């Protein structure tokens, strides 16, 4: 039994993180420090003909501008192949390349200087499709490497030809996955300080792998490693992502620090982060499988093309993991796998939690379900027939031994916990009844090599140091990335020494104080770093034992128990008292003994033969199985994830709280990968450049996640622990895809399973809204920071009108839309801040209706009793706007005047015949809301007018209502489409009046009069509802038929209109 291992242990970095006191990269502030920003390229591929910094360097406050020529050391960098630039010379490889870096006294000045650097180019045709990249006629992205192929790994086992000949069935499928952004919530930040003591630099920041950063900066600056000391700040998420990108940023900041001899901080905006940082590799995977009619796999041929983007970075290692694991955890005699990574002018791709496994598992596990279907067996049986057991031989010819091969055990546990077999029956029954919403259940499983394997050197370091009072320091060569490494390592030291974890302090890491422990990647920190910590703690324990063995009257350390701060004999004996740990420590200290020890753990032997892809790839493996239960809205293609059961063999749980946390977090990322995260890059230009376009799961997109931790202690790891971080993510998308096929009886070969992918069977990419704004603006703006603003805050409505009469101003009425739009504008803007004018607030009621002040917030609207009673559709629509914080600030007036086609308050106001009251010095006028909005972002407001209130007549009769809003997620949406509907009946129960209003479909919301007229005077029944299809199609086709999105929007909107009418019909039936 352990004292602390395996228990639920609260994180040791809890206090600073829940109080906001933890210091992240951008929280660092030093007196006299300069701010830096990067001048990115304007094009994704081409040759620079001229860089003009003359205007920029004359801007007051600019202290340095650094170019390629200023680099003192190595100009080309990269973890494996040197093909990357922190600052490019004259060749542009992708849209995240940096041409110059600026240091200035304020952030605003750095951005202004970047804008002022003028660059001229000759554009190349950008190579963006990896299938084009390998064609012989394609331009070489890096001609000096003679090929666009970065790496090619073959793997050959058995005789593939014979294997297919012996098969009863052969199927071939092509699977595709896209780029994925890490989307850590903290954008990268690095601060470099000149250090006169070492004549080098101190580097602080959001750094995942401090030793890699040190090496890169040292090379770039032409300095020895001991001149660069890297300190990790608290890291705001990484997931493999804060490696190469932060290293490049550190190089740039170091160069500016050298030129100015001042501390320099470089923090990315989110847009810069998404543009520059690397992504998960998109894969095109061709699978050919041969199998017997009973489901036994005979042969598998796999061809994979990975998009490495502009640089090779980690492609060598990412694709290597894929080649080892591409056939999944199945024993197949005959295999041929070829994987290639190729250069393009896209974002470069590198490490991301999973590291080459989520792609192949999506393909492999989708394929297994299809094979099962062909053979008429269940997904469970196909895996039982082919799955690895003890002693199985992998694709690379490795015999699985020396650890428990627990694949079938994890599947069994996942199936049991999820009640898989009963759920299948239940879902099948329910799907017979339900027409619109279909339920699905699917599973996926995997094996995964632990740590780096034959990728490279795999060793790491830790120091455990006991102080004279019995308190303990732990120091590690690996980094806390948020995963909980500090807590686990302190737990291990605490367990070995038998001291309370509160007595153990994890020291702030710095590269100068401990040997390079390699990167914190590959789910290796607990396994490798934990083992090094264990070894160090055991060394110290031996030293302390020397000074107490006499007192305890024991010979061997095994005869003692170290627990709860005391050291005692195994077998209690009279007259021998347990010794307090601190007394023992003091005694050892007094005896002149060294109570500090170095742990160094080097992995057991692995091997790899490049030409055949054979060898013992990893020294141990983990196994996992996930079951996904989903609901699919077949009217819209929207997937709702109901439950994910995640069973993982972790060897041994160190911190149960942390292990479960890894599962919750990894599965949530897997859900994002499988369903939501559709990175949009077109012709090398990143379109989804912030969290409005790149959608990660919100709290409402996660329902239930059930962690199942299985323990088969491993002989290598500390206390038997292995890996968990990455397996949690890699399985989810495949399980969801299999559940989707169960639900819809249609199979998807591509993720993410967006609305369009599910509904149409293909993805549609949309142009970004922000980029539309850029094109509208005369001056393209490089950084989305607000500049050039004047704000006047009038004391009264009269004063506001007076000001508007004299000059042109934009009204600031909450700012939640306006500020976003202003970020992309460079021309001067004058704002009139009316937010606190009392005359424009409040909701009043009179005989005819209500009056809503234009500054009433959505939070006020949705809880107002009069509105809730009389205008339920308005309440429903407003309650779905943005987020609670937006609704606390945003105003109904702002929403109307901004006139976005997706403005959620507008359709219900049209529905309820709202009128707007506009005031100017000339007087007051009333206008119907549907006459006010002309088109997208355009209204009939005059420059001297203010919207003061919205008048909504109270419904004079009983209306039945229905509302549906479609968003890609379950919260934080930009409405994809909405439909607002009310219907009243005459005394014969025929439709007396019907009002229908679209949202986000046409360029501005409008009444669907064609449909309203069709229904009016008739009984609302299924026949009439189906009759609306044709005229509605014609209406939409006429208005938006040639838009990129109409292929999806037309049929779905028709479905939605029909569904709200059915809903009203049902409500009538019930009343």
């Amino acid at each position, binding site marked *: 039994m352990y004292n602390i291992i395996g228990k639920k242990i*609260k994180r040791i970095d809890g206090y600073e993180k829940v109080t*906001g006191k933890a210091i992240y990269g951008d*929280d660092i502030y030093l007196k006299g420090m300069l701010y830096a920003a990067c001048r990115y390229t304007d094009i994704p591929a081409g040759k620079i003909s001229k860089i003009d910094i003359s205007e920029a360097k004359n801007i007051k406050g600019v202290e340095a501008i650094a170019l390629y020529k200023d680099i003192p050391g190595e100009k080309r960098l990269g973890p494996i192949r040197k093909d990357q630039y922190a600052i490019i010379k004259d060749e542009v490889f992708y849209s995240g390349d940096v041409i110059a870096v600026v240091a200035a006294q304020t952030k605003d000045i750095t951005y202004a200087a970047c804008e002022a650097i003028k660059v001229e180019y000759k554009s190349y045709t950008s190579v963006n499709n990896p299938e084009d990249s390998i064609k012989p006629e394609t331009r070489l992205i890096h001609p000096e490497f003679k090929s666009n192929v970065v790496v090619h790994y073959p793997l050959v086992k058995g005789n593939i030809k014979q294997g297919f000949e012996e098969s009863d069935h052969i199927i071939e499928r092509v699977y595709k996955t896209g780029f994925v952004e*890490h989307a850590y919530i903290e954008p990268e930040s690095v601060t470099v300080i000149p250090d006169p003591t070492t004549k080098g630099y101190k580097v602080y920041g959001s750094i995942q792998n401090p030793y890699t950063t040190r090496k890169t900066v040292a090379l770039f600056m032409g300095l020895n490693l001991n001149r660069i000391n890297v300190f990790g700040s608290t890291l705001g998420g990484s997931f493999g992502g804060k490696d190469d990108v932060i290293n490049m940023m550190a190089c740039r900041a170091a160069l500016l620090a050298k030129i100015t001899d001042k501390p320099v901080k470089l923090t990315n905006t989110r847009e810069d982060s998404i543009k520059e940082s690397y992504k998960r590799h998109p894969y095109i995977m061709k699978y050919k499988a041969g199998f017997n009619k009973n489901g036994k796999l005979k042969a598998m041929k796999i061809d994979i093309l990975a998009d490495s983007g502009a640089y090779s970075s980690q492609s060598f290692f990412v694709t290597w993991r894929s080649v080892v694991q591409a056939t999944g955890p199945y024993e197949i005699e005959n295999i041929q796998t070829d994987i290639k990574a190729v250069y393009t002018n896209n974002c470069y791709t590198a490490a991301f939690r999973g590291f080459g496994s989520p792609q192949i598992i999506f393909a492999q596990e989708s394929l297994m379900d299809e094979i099962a279907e062909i053979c008429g067996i269940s997904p469970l049986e196909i895996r039982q027939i082919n799955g690895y057991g003890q002693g199985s031989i992998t694709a690379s010819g490795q015999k699985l031994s020396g650890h428990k091969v627990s694949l079938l055990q994890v599947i069994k546990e996942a199936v049991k916990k999820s009640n898989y077999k009963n759920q299948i029956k239940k879902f099948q029954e329910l799907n017979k009844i339900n027409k619109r919403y279909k339920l699905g259940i699917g599973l996926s499983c995997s094996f995964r090599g632990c740590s780096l394997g034959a990728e490279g050197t795999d060793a790491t370091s830790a120091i455990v140091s006991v102080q004279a009072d019995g308190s303990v320091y732990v120091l590690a060569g690996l980094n806390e990335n948020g995963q909980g490494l500090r807590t686990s390592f302190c737990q291990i030291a605490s367990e070995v020494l038998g001291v309370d974890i509160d007595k153990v302090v994890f020291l702030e890491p710095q590269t100068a104080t401990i040997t390079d422990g390699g990167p914190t990647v590959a789910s290796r920190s607990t396994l490798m770093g934990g083992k090094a910590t264990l070894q160090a703690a055991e060394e110290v324990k031996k030293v302390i034992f020397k000074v107490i063995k006499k007192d305890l009257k024991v010979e061997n350390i095994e005869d003692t128990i170290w627990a709860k701060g005391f050291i005692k004999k195994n077998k209690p004996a009279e007259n021998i008292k347990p010794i307090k740990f601190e007394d023992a420590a003091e005694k050892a200290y007094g005896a002149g003994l060294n109570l500090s020890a170095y742990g160094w753990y080097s992995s057991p032997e692995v091997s790899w033969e490049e030409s055949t892809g054979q060898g013992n790839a990893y020294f141990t493996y983990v196994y996992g199985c996930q079951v996904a239960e989903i609901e699919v809205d077949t009217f819209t293609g929207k997937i709702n994830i109901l439950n994910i059961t995640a069973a993982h063999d972790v060897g041994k749980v160190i911190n149960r709280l942390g292990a*479960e946390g890894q599962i919750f977090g990894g599965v949530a990322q897997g859900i994002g990968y499988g369903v939501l995260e559709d990175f949009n890059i077109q012709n090398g230009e990143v379109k989804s450049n912030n969290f409005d376009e790149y959608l990660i799961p919100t709290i409402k997109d996660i329902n239930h996640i059930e962690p199942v931790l299985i323990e088969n202690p491993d002989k290598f790891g500390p206390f038997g622990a292995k890996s968990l971080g990455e397996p949690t993510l890699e399985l989810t998308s495949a399980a969801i895809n299999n559940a989707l096929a169960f639900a819809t009886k249609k199979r998807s070969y591509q993720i993410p399973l967006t609305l369009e992918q599910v509904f149409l069977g293909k993805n549609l990419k949309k142009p970004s809204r922000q980029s539309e704004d850029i094109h509208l603006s005369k001056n393209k703006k490089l950084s989305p920071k607000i500049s050039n603003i004047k704000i006047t805050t009038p004391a009264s409505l009269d004063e506001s009108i007076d000001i508007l009469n004299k000059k042109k101003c934009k009204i600031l009425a909450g700012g939640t839309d306006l500020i976003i739009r202003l970020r992309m504008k460079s021309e001067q803007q004058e704002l009139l801040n009316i937010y606190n004018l009392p005359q424009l607030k409040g909701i009043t009621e009179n005989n005819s209706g209500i009056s809503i002040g234009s500054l009433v917030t959505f939070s006020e609207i949705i809880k107002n009793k009069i509105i809730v009673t009389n205008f339920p559709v308005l309440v429903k629509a407003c309650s779905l706007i943005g987020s609670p914080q937006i609704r606390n*600030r945003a105003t109904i007036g702002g929403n109307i005047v901004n006139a976005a086609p997706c403005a959620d308050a507008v359709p219900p106001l049209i529905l309820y015949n709202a009128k707007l009251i506009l005031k100017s010095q000339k007087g007051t006028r009333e206008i119907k809301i549907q006459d006010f909005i002309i088109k997208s972002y355009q209204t009939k407001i005059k420059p001297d007018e203010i919207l003061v209130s919205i008048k909504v007549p109270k419904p004079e009769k009983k209306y039945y209502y229905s509302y549906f809003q479609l968003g890609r997620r379950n919260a934080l949406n930009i409405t994809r489409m909405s439909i607002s509907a009310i219907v009243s009946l005459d005394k014969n129960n025929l439709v007396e009046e019907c009002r229908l209003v679209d949202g986000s479909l046409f360029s501005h919301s409008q009444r669907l009069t064609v449909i309203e007229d069709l229904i009016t005077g008739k009984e609302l029944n299924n026949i009439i509802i189906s009759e609306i299809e044709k005229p509605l199609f014609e209406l939409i086709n006429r208005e938006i038929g040639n838009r990129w999105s109409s292929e999806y929007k037309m049929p779905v909107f028709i479905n939605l209109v029909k569904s709200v009418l059915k809903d009203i019909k049902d409500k009538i039936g019930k009343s």
Partner: protein
Amino acid sequence: MPEIQFTLNGERRTVNIEANDILLDVLRDKLGIKSPKCGCDRGDCGACAVLLNGKSVRSCLIFAIEVNEQEITTLEGISKNELSPLQQAFINNNSFQCGYCAPGIIITATELLNKNPHPTREEVKENLSGNLCRCTGYIPIIEAVLEASKRGKNE
């Protein structure tokens, strides 16, 4: 340079600002209040949430000048003396990993518990639906808010 005055965590503060200064930047860079974080700078992530007159708002979408004579509370103001039950529940439930989103989430959940001391699971989810977290999968966050709601006052 205009001057604004406002109450920050119970103290009267005066600061000189530029017209285009965003509240988040003024808090972080001019007043040294570092708990609100910048994640997206356009209202999509919630890491910068602060309480404005007791209501949670996104401080990246408010000009500093707009808070003249208003009241702002950040995490620094909530945990002046000891951890609130909510903060303690966050530690108990492993409700953060990297911790970058935690200040915004704790601020938003504090507002929720102030106006609704015993929220349902669905109400917790609705109220935190504007705060993105990439590490935790949200489940431990929901558990923490529900645990704190059983323990009493949170400010």
